[in-house]
């Protein structure tokens, strides 16, 4: 790392997928070209996800005197930042993220998994080594495998993929299982819609995951590791490939690692777009070149997994925790969290939220603290209605219950699950029946088809929800939904089917009135369900610009220029394009 004196600067640009999508690469490029030829002591560094996704493109400018974050940076703003801040020494105050905002976003967080995210260059192993990387591997290799497992067990770490199974116990089962070779698989098939924790970790700090896998390999006596990554995450795959190459060069992966009697190789396998492959037995089927269909457990993969050999499967976030636990000790990790849920959890905070992003909080924090304090409330400024946790396997928790602590046991009691960490905040504009329908549409599509109740039951539930949102529901439908839900849960082999009814059951439990409103009054209170609303144009707000006329796919809108337009409800298909497009907010749903 370069020596820093008080005249030297470091400029970091957040270049994870979100940052790039917001234009980060262009901002980085402009910084690079504008800095060239100038006699300035500046290190320009690409980093991963800084976490404050709502402020992308994010740029951090720091010197020994302190650091400043710039939010929503555009290529046009770069020159002034260089001239005024780097050369002139005066930050461009109106473009910086206010310190109070950073404090409220950051102060309740504890970054263990995200310890390097947004700080180091994910494509530089030197950066990782400078931040203490691979020291935990050194330490683990001086310990016996059973001591390493004991450390993980005492830390209380539980699987972060969603099920929350004790990681140490899983490792011990695989260690003790007969058979060789043994495998370590990292499940990076992050398929829950609304979840991007694993993507961010892989894109921002890939070595931490590799190091976790290596430590697991030593602990359970495995010689081969496989990273199963979603094909939809090309940047994560690219950065992992680079990290693997660097780790091999440095001798962290390969034979006789760090001079010890420990051989371990890691390869990458890309998923091919099947949500069910997040389930461990389906994932194994997929690696074996078969259709990803789950099988009955036991035997568990720890006993008979890939190619019938003992296999330990953990999620990305679980592995990223491991080096920190080994380096800092089980006690330090267990100091965070609640009695049964230790440590921290990463959440992808999105939906209608003022400050959405990637956050890591100690287990036991309340939903209210996350939404209101860290997230700054809803994006619309109206009261928040509910949060959705756990994606299609999870459920909604109403705002009235937001004081409950986020830990495995408390969340399970609500009917939702902690899941992998997607947290979608919803305001009054979200229709709960529509949300349930959205998830059921997803699960019935992703059901592998093996179990009848999952394959057909989810389809029938979706049809009922379509009937209700279409204004043709009856009260008997609700009873049928509840009956089907119970049967699907009972008769499905894997978590996909068993948890598929959760979005319906939780919305029915907490928002039954909303279902009834659809059924009895034929109204959608959130004005979301197309069959139950009519779009009209408020004449006093309509400037007659003609934009909606151009966008209407069915020519349902008419009117002369500069005169209020009208929508013909008989032609209108309620797609809502006019409502989205109108700059004056003149198109409303009634």
């Amino acid at each position, binding site marked *: 790392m370069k020596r820093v004196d008080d005249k030297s600067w470091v400029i970091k640009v957040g270049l994870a997928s979100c940052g790039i999508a917001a234009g980060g690469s262009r901002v980085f490029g402009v910084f690079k070209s504008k800095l060239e030829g100038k006699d300035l002591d500046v290190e320009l560094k690409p980093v991963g996800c800084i976490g404050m996704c709502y402020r*992308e493109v994010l740029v951090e400018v720091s010197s020994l005197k302190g650091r400043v974050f710039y939010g929503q940076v555009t290529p046009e703003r770069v020159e002034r930042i260089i001239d005024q801040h780097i050369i002139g020494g005066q930050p461009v105050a109106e473009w910086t993220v206010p310190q109070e905002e950073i404090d409220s976003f950051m102060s309740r967080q504890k970054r263990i998994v995200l310890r390097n995210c947004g700080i180091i260059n994910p494509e530089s192993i030197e950066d990782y080594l400078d931040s203490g990387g691979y020291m935990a591997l050194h330490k683990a290799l001086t310990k016996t495998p059973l001591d390493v497992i004991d450390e993980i067990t005492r830390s209380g770490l539980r699987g972060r993929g969603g099920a929350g199974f004790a990681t140490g116990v899983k490792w011990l089962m695989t260690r003790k299982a007969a058979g060789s070779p043994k495998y370590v698989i990292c499940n990076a098939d992050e398929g829950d819609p609304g979840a991007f924790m694993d993507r961010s970790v892989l894109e921002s700090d890939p070595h931490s995951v590799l190091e976790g896998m290596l430590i697991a390999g030593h602990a359970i006596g495995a010689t081969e590791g496989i990273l199963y990554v979603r094909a*939809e995450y090309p940047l994560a795959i690219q950065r992992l490939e680079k990290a693997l190459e660097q780790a091999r060069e440095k001798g962290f992966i390969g034979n006789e690692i760090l001079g010890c009697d420990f051989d371990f190789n890691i390869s990458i396998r890309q998923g091919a777009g099947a949500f069910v492959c997040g389930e461990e037995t389906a994932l194994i089927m997929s690696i074996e*070149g078969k259709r990803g269909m789950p099988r009955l457990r036991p035997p568990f993969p720890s006993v008979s997994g890939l190619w019938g050999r003992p296999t330990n499967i953990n999620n990305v976030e679980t592995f990223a925790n491991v080096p920190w636990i080994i380096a800092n000790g089980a006690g330090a990790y267990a100091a965070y969290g609640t009695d049964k849920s230790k440590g921290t959890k990463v959440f992808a905070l999105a939906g209608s939220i003022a400050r*959405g992003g990637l956050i890591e909080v100690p287990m036991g924090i309340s939903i209210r603290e996350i939404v209101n304090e860290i997230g700054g409330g809803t994006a619309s400024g109206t009261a928040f209605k509910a949060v959705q946790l756990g994606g299609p396997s999870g459920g909604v928790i109403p705002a009235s219950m937001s004081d409950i602590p986020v830990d495995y046991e408390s969340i399970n009691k609500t009917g939702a699950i902690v899941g992998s960490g997607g947290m979608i905040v919803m305001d009054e504009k979200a229709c709960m029946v529509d949300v349930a329908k959205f998830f059921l549409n997803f699960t019935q599509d992703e059901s592998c088809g093996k179990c009848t109740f999952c394959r057909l039951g989810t389809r029938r539930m979706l049809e009922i929800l379509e009937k209700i949102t279409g204004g043709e529901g009856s009260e008997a439908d609700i009873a049928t939904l509840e009956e089907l839900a119970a049967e699907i849960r009972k008769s499905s082999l894997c978590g996909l089917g068993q948890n598929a009814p959760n979005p319906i059951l939780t919305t029915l439990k907490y928002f039954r009135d909303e279902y009834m409103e659809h059924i009895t009054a034929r109204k959608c209170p959130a004005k979301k369900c197309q069959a139950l609303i009519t779009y009209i144009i408020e004449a006093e707000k309509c400037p007659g610009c003609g934009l909606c006329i151009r966008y209407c796919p069915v020519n349902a809108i008419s009117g002369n220029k500069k005169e209020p337009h009208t929508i013909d409800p008989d032609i209108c298909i309620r797609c809502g394009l006019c409502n*989205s497009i109108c700059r004056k907010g003149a198109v409303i749903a009634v």
Partner: protein
Amino acid sequence: MHTESINDKKLSLTLVDAIVFKHNVQPGAVIPVLQEIQEEYGYIPPAAIQRIANHLGVFSSDIYGMVTFYAQFRLQPPGKNVIKVCHGTACHLGGAERLTEAISQHIGTTEGRTSKDGQFTLERVACLGCCSLAPCVTVNGEIHGRLNPESVGKVVNKLKEEKTANVE
């Protein structure tokens, strides 16, 4: 990603063979083999399915079963530009359906299809994991976020202009 036209690339069985042999003719490597073939052609040509099956000593229906199980694989050649609309939770709440409707209008085809001129294919994807930028789409692998029906039109029109420029 596929920036050049791959619609009319002729299937080379030698290439299919090379890909299968690169993976040591292992039945376990079906997915990577199919992925590489799709990377090459933009879809899985039927003749390739038969060829892979012959090499691996399995029925072509087994390979077909894999192709249809995994959402990533296509059996039809895609258009020159592939637009995927994210339908994750945040994008759904943020108006992914409306975005799809708007894109359909701009490119003249509907979800799951390719426009008649072979320029655009419109697909849906479960979640791109860019929830903070919802709603978002990928165009030829590049992510565009914080879109609305109007701004997505600009993205599409830019692609159309590029096409016109190339012709000139």
